[in-house]
């Protein structure tokens, strides 16, 4: 069985599965139950000056019968007294010395405030700090959270303040609500961050109650934008993680966050450069118990692929991400329909007809009408393969015409005048 242990910026963890700073890590008893369930680490619900929350804090988007493919919240940081949290952190760490216990922090933009809280946490025996520069709602209106993460200079400055006060590993949690994730990431590293975690939640408004016409979540007739998370945000998170994993100036470990609910999601984050992953929404949906299959599934996957340790796959797929301009323009695939598996729903036809390149007409086979690929016209876009409900029916087959790979970058450097039109 593959070794799932990881060392994340000096923090030892029995597996890469951590709970993200959120309601599931609100207090000691919860974190302890999570560790008992198998979670390797937990990032404690953000500490700071206690706040007052609004009532009605969550809203979700469903996809057909699938509930909560996206979740949004307007909850703030911990509403519990600091001394109570610190006491529980100390007890928890004592009880679970081998688990990773990270404490998320967010205080006002004052050097002394950050110094003070960093020292208090270090005193508990916790393994590391995570600076919450990402929370997009509420706290950002008070100059905290995303308000810090969106300005690289602040990110750098506050990271430096924390590093001045503690010897613990410092993780900076980044907000995705920026034009590019790279500047704040580099700023954090410049400020001395030992690691990065991303993504925090995305600005979002979840919808409107069509009867009352009040948006969700309704707080006495009014709503506010909140932070979006859950399965729907995974691709956005994967993109940002892979960008930082490929950035030479960001040479610190990454804890991937965003839509992770299964070992498959986790493996993708690891392959694109995350050393650990953090989970919240899936646990809010199904409970701590989901970690059992995450561990089991990842372990089986690593065994089947012949890896001894999970560390062997970290970042393995990151070099496979490049810029569009470097992709091979000569690579060609066309769709192939296995008519023995075709159920004649014609979704490929109508998708291609109305949404792609009009290259799936019909043909008659044994008196039945089947969609068929016009291989000359097929541009290999994948749409038919994506919409087909019958497993294995449509595949994308490589057409190798023997030509050498060439990218737009190469072509345009050779013949700049002919490429401008493209």
């Amino acid at each position, binding site marked *: 069985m593959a070794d799932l242990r990881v060392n994340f910026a000096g923090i030892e963890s029995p597996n890469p599965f951590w709970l993200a700073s959120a309601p599931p890590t609100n207090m000691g008893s919860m974190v302890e139950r999570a560790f008992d369930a198998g979670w390797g680490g937990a990032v404690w619900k953000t500490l700071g000056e206690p706040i007052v929350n609004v009532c009605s804090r969550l809203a979700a988007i469903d996809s*057909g019968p699938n509930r909560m493919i996206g979740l949004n919240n307007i909850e703030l940081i911990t509403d519990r007294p600091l001394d109570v949290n610190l006491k529980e952190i100390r007890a928890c760490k004592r009880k679970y010395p081998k688990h990773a216990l990270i404490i998320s922090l967010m205080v006002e933009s004052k050097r002394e405030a950050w110094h003070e809280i960093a020292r208090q946490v270090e005193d508990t025996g916790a393994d590391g700090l995570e600076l919450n520069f990402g929370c997009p709602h509420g706290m950002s209106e008070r100059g905290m959270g995303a308000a810090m993460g969106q300005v690289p200079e602040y990110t750098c400055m506050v990271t430096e303040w924390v590093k001045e006060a503690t010897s613990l590993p410092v993780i900076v949690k980044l907000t995705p609500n920026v034009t590019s994730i790279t500047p704040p990431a580099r700023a954090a590293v410049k400020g001395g961050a030992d690691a990065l975690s991303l993504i925090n939640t995305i600005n979002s408004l979840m919808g409107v109650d069509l009867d009352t016409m009040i948006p969700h979540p309704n707080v006495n007739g009014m709503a506010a934008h909140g932070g979006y998370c859950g399965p729907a945000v995974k691709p956005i998170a994967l993109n940002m993680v892979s960008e930082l994993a490929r950035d030479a100036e960001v040479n610190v470990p990454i804890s991937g966050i965003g839509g992770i609910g299964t070992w498959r999601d986790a493996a993708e984050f690891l392959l694109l450069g995350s050393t650990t992953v953090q989970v919240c929404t899936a646990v809010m949906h199904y409970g701590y118990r989901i970690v059992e299959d995450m561990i089991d599934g990842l372990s089986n996957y690593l065994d089947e692929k012949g890896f001894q340790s999970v560390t062997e796959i970290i970042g393995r797929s990151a070099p496979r991400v490049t810029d569009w301009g470097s992709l091979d323009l000569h690579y060609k695939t066309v769709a192939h329909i296995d008519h023995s598996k075709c159920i004649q729903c*014609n*979704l490929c*036809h109508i998708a291609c*007809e109305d949404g792609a390149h*009009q290259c799936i*007409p*019909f*043909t008659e086979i044994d008196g039945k009408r089947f969609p*068929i690929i016009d291989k000359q016209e097929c541009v290999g876009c994948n749409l038919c393969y994506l919409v087909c409900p019958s497993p294995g029916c449509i595949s994308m087959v490589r057409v190798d015409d023997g030509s050498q790979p060439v990218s737009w970058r190469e072509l345009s450097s050779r013949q700049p005048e002919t490429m401008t039109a493209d």
Partner: protein
Amino acid sequence: MSTTLNPSIPIEEVERNFREIAPPLTEAEAVFEANRCVYCYDAPCTRACPTHIDVPGFIKKIASGNLLGSARVIFDANPIGATCARVCPVDVLCEGACVEKTLMDKPIEIGRLQRYATDDLMSKGREVLQAGAPNGRSVGVIGSGPAGLSCATYLARLGYAVTVYDRKTLAGGLDTYGMAEYKMTQRVSTEEAAMVSRLGVEFKMNTLITVNGDRSSELQVQNLDTISLAELEAKHDAIFIGIGLGATTRLNIPGEDLQGVYDALDFIERIKTREWSSVPIGRNVAVIGAGNTAIDAVTQARRLGAERVLLVYRRSQKEMPAYEYEYELAKKDAVEFWWQTAPVEVLSTEDGGGVAALRCVRMELGEPDSSGRRSARAVEGSEFDIPVDMVIKALGQQKMRDFLGAIDGVKLDEAGRIAVDKATGRTGNPKFFAGGDCVNGGREAVDASQAGKLAAQGIHESLTGEHVEFAGTRLPLLEETHEIKAH
């Protein structure tokens, strides 16, 4: 009377036995099922439906929470969509064609989804169809069954003044009087007829159309008004014949008219009242025939409390005309199947007041006959008696040749069915149109509904020259895309 047949089980048990076999979907079930539909393009379910309802269209409206729109899609193409949701042989129509049947051997429950959408509409009393502006023309519809109701609906939508004539008290024809009670109650059908009525269609019930204005004493006893065909022709610009079929075919064996021998349709009609104590039922019941009506008779005889129910059929199970799932239903009800058995006499009780037994012979099967089924021949000396106290005849219905033959120009085929132009329902007499069982010889309600639609369009074109096509008139023909240039 020595044999008053009555249920031998408590009424509450009968009520339980007659609960719907396909209960309504809950909201959660309906939404889940609707989301399971893959939303085929040029969908096989729509192709399979005789009325070509846009099935994926109405299902996706259930998924989106647009139930009013969903019901409109259904009733637009099929005015008896609520009935069909319950009584259609979906296994051989829409659900039988569903791609989910291919993919995971579990077709979308189209029938129950259709019921969900139509139930919602009818429970809220909302309307999805509107009568057209009056066009000054008038059409008479003979028969308020599925064909007549459908034809009347589309004609009303086109602005015609429509009068429906029916000899029964309640509208709906066999939808009201002939459907197995565990599939559908009368209320669904009568509510559908009420929807048609709200389009301005006039219903003249308890009214018999006669060939020559016969007002015999017998008819007056039955409390029927009569109107002659001539009066009808004078009153209306066109007439639609949707009279269905006639009396159950006779056995032509001794004892057939004994007390205790019933027509399946009469038996079912008694059940439809749900006045259980007045429904005749024996302890040992033989049903003769093996069509879908025979199945309705055996399953309901069991539900009424008959201890032993036999289905007697002269051919084998292979030749049985009933649908496979209907046969399965009867098997579940512990019905005995007497294959290759033909009745030769109904034996009476000693006092002559009832049925004592059914005398049968064994049958041999030979080569296929004109019907395509293997011919059956009695085995000499194979007579035997089955003790039964009730016999139900389910041999199919006869054609109403006498009535139809009396209409000038209306031609019948050799089987006694009205010959029509399929696309318009026009008969040999340009003023008369026809559809449903009297044309097709006895098929599903949904077939009759489509025939009513086509005839309404045919009537309109014949009277105005204008060609109209309502939803589901034709298959939504999928335009072929460009030719494949090369392979």
